């Protein structure tokens, strides 16, 4: 993607280089810490998704779009998650010392997480990983997300807006009941297109048309996607064809979140060679053109 505006809170050891550890001591002020957050709000948005707001000391609220935290989920009578669970930043508010998450209750860990009550504390390790970046000179970006992937893209849209970059947001969902974060995108004046399975508009053919139109009308100097393999492949193909740089936020099972255990690797195609990278440290945001489908 050539030169980029860096919105990173400072380079970290693991993030500094995708090819290996850096020599030399690390910066004195830690930009990652295992802090204790206090739950200030925790509500259901619909049957599956919960919205969690915590008050947390720095560096947590300094997290940037695309970064994530490794959350220590509580234990309940039924669910006793052993490892932490990674969650993307949904919103960081350094002024009020707040960090927000939006998550889908899927299994053991998120079920347990869903039980945490307002006023309780939770350990949160982060901010972790490499966040989104916007290429220098970009005037407008196109973001395409589905499901909980929209949660990851919402703070990117705000970061773009803050930097005077326009946003076209294509929000894909099963039905209108499960589209999330519309207000977030609307608030920054994004051009929003909602596409649904229920009325067939989420069909890749239709999404392709929307993306092509955005590119043709100069509203897509960069592509961003999260949450769907199919949409990632579509955006990748178009990006290659139209020479539009892009980024994708990926998920993989994690244990440490800190680049130590090597369980979170995914394969990437780097100049035709397949290379394994750790999603927690080299990602979770990667170059769209190097990503491989999962």
């Amino acid at each position, binding site marked *: 993607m050539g030169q980029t505006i860096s919105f990173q809170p400072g380079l970290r050891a693991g993030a500094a280089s995708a090819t290996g550890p850096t020599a030399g001591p690390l910066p004195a002020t*830690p930009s990652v810490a*295992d802090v204790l957050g206090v739950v200030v709000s925790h509500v259901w948005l619909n049957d599956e998704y919960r919205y969690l707001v915590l008050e947390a000391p720095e560096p947590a609220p300094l997290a940037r779009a695309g970064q994530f935290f490794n959350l220590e989920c509580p234990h309940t009578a039924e669910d006793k998650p052993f490892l932490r669970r990674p969650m993307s930043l949904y919103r960081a508010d350094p002024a009020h010392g707040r960090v927000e998450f939006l998550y889908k209750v899927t299994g053991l860990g998120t079920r347990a997480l869903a039980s945490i009550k307002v006023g309780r504390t939770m350990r949160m390790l982060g901010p972790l990983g490499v966040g989104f970046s916007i290429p220098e000179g970009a005037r407008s970006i196109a973001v395409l997300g589905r499901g909980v992937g929209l949660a990851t893209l919402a703070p990117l849209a705000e970061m773009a807006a803050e930097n005077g970059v326009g946003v076209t947001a294509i929000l894909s969902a099963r039905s209108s009941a499960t589209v999330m974060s519309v207000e977030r995108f609307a608030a920054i004046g994004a051009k929003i297109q909602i596409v649904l399975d229920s009325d067939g508009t989420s069909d890749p053919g239709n999404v392709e048309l929307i993306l092509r139109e955005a590119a043709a009308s100069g509203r897509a100097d960069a592509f961003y996607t999260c949450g769907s393999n199919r949409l990632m492949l579509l955006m990748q193909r178009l990006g290659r064809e139209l020479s539009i740089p892009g980024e994708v936020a990926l998920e993989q099972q994690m244990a440490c979140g800190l680049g130590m255990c090597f369980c979170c690797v995914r394969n990437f195609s780097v100049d035709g060679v397949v290379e394994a990278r750790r999603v927690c440290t080299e990602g979770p945001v990667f170059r769209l053109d190097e990503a491989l489908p999962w």
Partner: protein
Amino acid sequence: MVDPITATPIAPPPPKVDPSVRIGDLVLRNAVMPASGTFAEGLAEIVPFEKLGAMVTKTITPQLRGGNPTPRVCEVGQGMLNSIGIPSKGIDYFLEHTLPFWRTFATPLVVSVSAESGDAFADAVARLDAPGVAAIEANISCPNIEEDGKAFAMDPRSTAQVVAKMRRATKLPLWAKLSPNTGDVASVARAAEEAGADALVVANTILAMSIDIETLRPRLGNVMGGLSGPAMKPIAVRMVYQCARVVSIPVIGCGGIATAADAVEYLLAGASAVQVGTATFVRPTAMLSVIDGLAEYCRRKGFSRVADLTGALHDADMTVYVHEAAS
């Protein structure tokens, strides 16, 4: 005692506890170090490496290696399985790019190494005799291609062979990391000692398996993987006890240590130091609390040195059948 300025009585200062331990010729500032494969550069922002007794690298292999298919980990109750494999960039890469990073810390660096044959092990160990390397930890829990893929450490004979070859190849302190996947860890321990190991690490992960009954598939891409975490602790404590009774070199306990109480158990069973692995994933600062908690325990129990905990188990009046199974 009386405060000299305010003239009010003050509590006597808590008795000083010496936290240092000795592993052969190496004196460590405390008894706590990470377990191989659960520690890397990324932790430096959270745990000041200067506070650790030692640093232990992920196992390095002579050549570039890929590692296993995903998923590479899964949870099982109070433990996890992993089948990371040993992804490695090779020894040359390590010496050139990674070692300089570790050298910036004053804490002794233990380099974990693995290879597929005795000669390859010897060769690797020789190449690792570089400034900044304080000791070698030979991960002999890995498959031996000359023995049909069985791990070296499953058998006293192959353990003796591989350790002897390494011993001839280096003057660095040589630690042998044993596998729990054997019926007779005490004999393996003795074989390693006789072949020249300076210390033993007991133990690596226990081979295990978990199945997703919804998909009917193994939960690890590699089908089987190694169990680590609290679930394995009583098994590894037993092995440390069995080994420490039959060797006179130090034993380093490893397996499921998450708290100082866990570490104390290992020390009482006969360990001279401990390694903390999986717990760091769950609580990145776990090693720091183990370090502090060990000193606190010694203070409370009246031990003036953490090293005095080693083998301090009260079992003299008990009959022990080292080899006997229970039920």
